[in-house]
């Protein structure tokens, strides 16, 4: 199962990276979201999957899923939510001020 999940995370990375290499701002932002999902999937996979109960203490249960990766993912999800929202507004404003959503037109290399 872990291997399948690693492959799935890898696929999410592939799709995410591909999207990030596109020109349109929207696609790039979608790419980062896919990448985040891939990363979170990796974290949960790196703890062992499907071992024991959910990490909520209950009587008679001694085996629980590794809680630490879950805690880390939670932190990470919240952070990437913050960053993604920021990025979305930025994308919108960047489009509005520059008049294009095509990053290839936003090179700004007119220096020199």
């Amino acid at each position, binding site marked *: *199962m*872990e*291997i*399948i*999940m*690693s492959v*799935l*995370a*890898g*696929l*999410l*990375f*592939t*799709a*995410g*990276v*591909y*999207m*990030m290499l*596109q020109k*349109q*701002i*929207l696609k790039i932002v*979608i790419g980062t*979201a896919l990448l985040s*999902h891939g990363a979170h*999937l*990796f974290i*949960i996979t790196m703890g062992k999957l*499907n*071992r024991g109960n*959910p*990490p909520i*203490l209950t009587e008679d249960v001694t085996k*629980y*899923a*590794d*809680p*630490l990766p879950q*805690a880390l*993912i*939670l*932190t990470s*999800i*919240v952070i990437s939510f*913050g*960053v*993604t*929202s*920021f990025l979305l*507004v930025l*994308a*919108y*404003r960047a489009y509005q001020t520059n008049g294009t*959503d095509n*990053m290839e037109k*936003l*090179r700004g*290399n007119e220096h*020199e």
Partner: protein
Amino acid sequence: MLHAAVLLPFLAAFFIPFIYRGVKQVHLGWFVLAVPILLFGYFLTFIKNVLQGVHTLKTFEWIPSLGVNVTLYIDGLGLFFALLITGIGSLVVLYSIYYLNKAEKLGHFYVYLLLFMGAMLGVVLSDNLFVLYTFWELTSISSFLLIGYWYQREKSTAGALKSMVITVFGGLAMLGGFLLMSDLTGTTSIRGIIENADLIVESPLFSFILILVLLGAFTKSAQFPFHTWLPDAMEAPTPVSAFLHSATMVKAGIYLVARLSLVFAGTDLFFLIVSGFGLLTLCWGSYMAVRKTDLKAILAYSTISQLGMIMAMLGFGTKAAILAAVFHILNHATFKGSLFMVAGIVDHETGTRDIRRLGGLFTFMPITATLAFFGAFSMAGFPLPIFNGFLSKEMFFEASLFKHSSPIVESVAPFFPYLAVGGSIFTFIYSVMLFFRTFTGKQRDTLEKQPHEAPIGMLISPMILVALVVIIAIVPDVFGKSLLAPMVDSITGKAVDPHIKFWHGINNTALYMSLAVLVFGTILYLTRTKWEKVYDILPGKMSAAKVFDAFMNGLETGSKKVTNRYMTGSLRHYLVYILTFSVVLLAVSMSVTGGFNLSTDDLAPIAVPEVMIAVVMAVAAFGTIFMNNRIAAILVLGIVGYGLSLLFVFFRAPDLALTQLIVETVTVALFLLCFYHLPDLNKEKTPSRTKVVNWVISISVGVIVTLIGIASHSTKMFEPISEYFIKNSYKLGGGDNIVNVILVDFRGLDTLLEILVLGLAAIGIFTMIKLRPNKKGGNE
């Protein structure tokens, strides 16, 4: 006390601006003059000690833990240079008082000059390699400022830059050499290094070190092909040219070679490089000087050539050669100093330095002309024993006839006398030309100013120097015994008979060489119009200056080209570079360190629902790529997110699932909100090559992270620390939900900061929406 002496010019430099502001009636130079005179007097008191072989050594601990201490050391070599710097320094400051008008920015001028003086004293008195280097660069910097003194002129600033680039380049090379030397010998003291010279000479790095150090010396002392900065440095006010660019700073390289002779001399490589480049510089400098028409340019090339001659003698390394070298350092300072001052006077009183426009000045300025006569003929080495230049040139010829034991040296040494004579012939020509074209004949052009004799104040300094020219020539032994002998001691490490013959006698090869110079020089001077075409062939259109300019231009255009190539401003390019590099590096790392490992021992069983979700997620992820409708793309992205939260449910992470569900919902809503305002996705017309590149990169990224992920999972080397959390969650954290306890207790800091991140994002979003730049663009 000794440290105070080196510090004095710096202190004075610090106070000069205040005096300048306070006292307007008196020329600032009079205050400055006190510094070199005081120091000169102070250094004179060391002569007695040095003659008795007593060397002074004083240490001030600067950065002892790095072995960088200001250790000042006075032996014959250091003392001679200290006297030269302060002696010529006094005369130059005196001269400058009359040369520079009070309307000039005198404050700046004297600050730079004093900085230089202090730095130069530091160079010749430091026993510590790195302190020497510090002062060395400081001389380059003060020279840069002095050349750029008239900073509005483009020529001045260009000359300043050139001198700085070349001398700092050499300085850095030298620093490299110093680092290696101190590493090999374990000491930063020059005396210590000389004691352990065999460690350096026997090291496989010897040639590397030698070349690095010599690069420093050659650039500073304007040896071919680094000489090109010196003519351009003539943009500095003439007192500066007389002081820095003929008498002192350019001799720092000579000093360095002399100082380290005890380490390097005696090796064939040292001999070949130093005497070879020395002679080459001698010939090239004098050859080029003949061609020049600006008085200061002639003097600049002449200085180059004379420096080459001194360098060559240091390369010969015999006792006679060293004596000749140090003698010539003294002589050159006197006659070249006086000639520069004369050139300054001519410029000052006629408004030009171009010898094509000058002529017949003897009648207007007889004293100046007389001074020039002595200077020029001494420089020419005219065979009359009233010119110190003749004495040292004679010794140079004699030294060039030396015998040497090494076979390599044996094979090249016979050419040296011819080169020496050849270079000297041209020296003779330009010296004679300098004098005759300026002071005799008819005035060729109407000048801006009616020429007249210079004020007496301006004449004092060159008069003293010319007096020295003659006195040294008549009683060379006085100087030989008191100044030169201890100096030769320091360079060769053994006591030497300092006797300088006033007259070498008739039956003597050296004299014949001198006579040959005289005869051929005169003939060539008289027929110069006939053979001037030679210069069209050599150098023709070549010049070291052009090489330098090409280098600087190349640096600018080349760097622009290179940089524009990769700094395209395209985000995609940047990502392509970053990702390609990462993938390649990771692949290399994995194959080199062999970390890949696939273990199926400890895996969770494969369950159908999870796999199905995985397939859906994968399809959805790739679906985003092919969606042409923004709403659809966002919804498909949502499928991936919701799929993930379902997986979290299966993987026993209820909190995660819940959070992911909420976050995903909000994110999708946000996406929709924002992209309602953005243009719809269009089918990008991407060239298929770009598409292929994108696919290759994204697939390889996916593959490599998957491989690392699988390998990481398969090489669990340690028990995770999480057992502790399960055991102590309730006991210590008072909660059943372990993940929650971790978040708020065990790793509470993370959670605090995560909230902070949200807050910051909110502030950022708020400013982005609310803050609109005012019309002007609002950037400060």
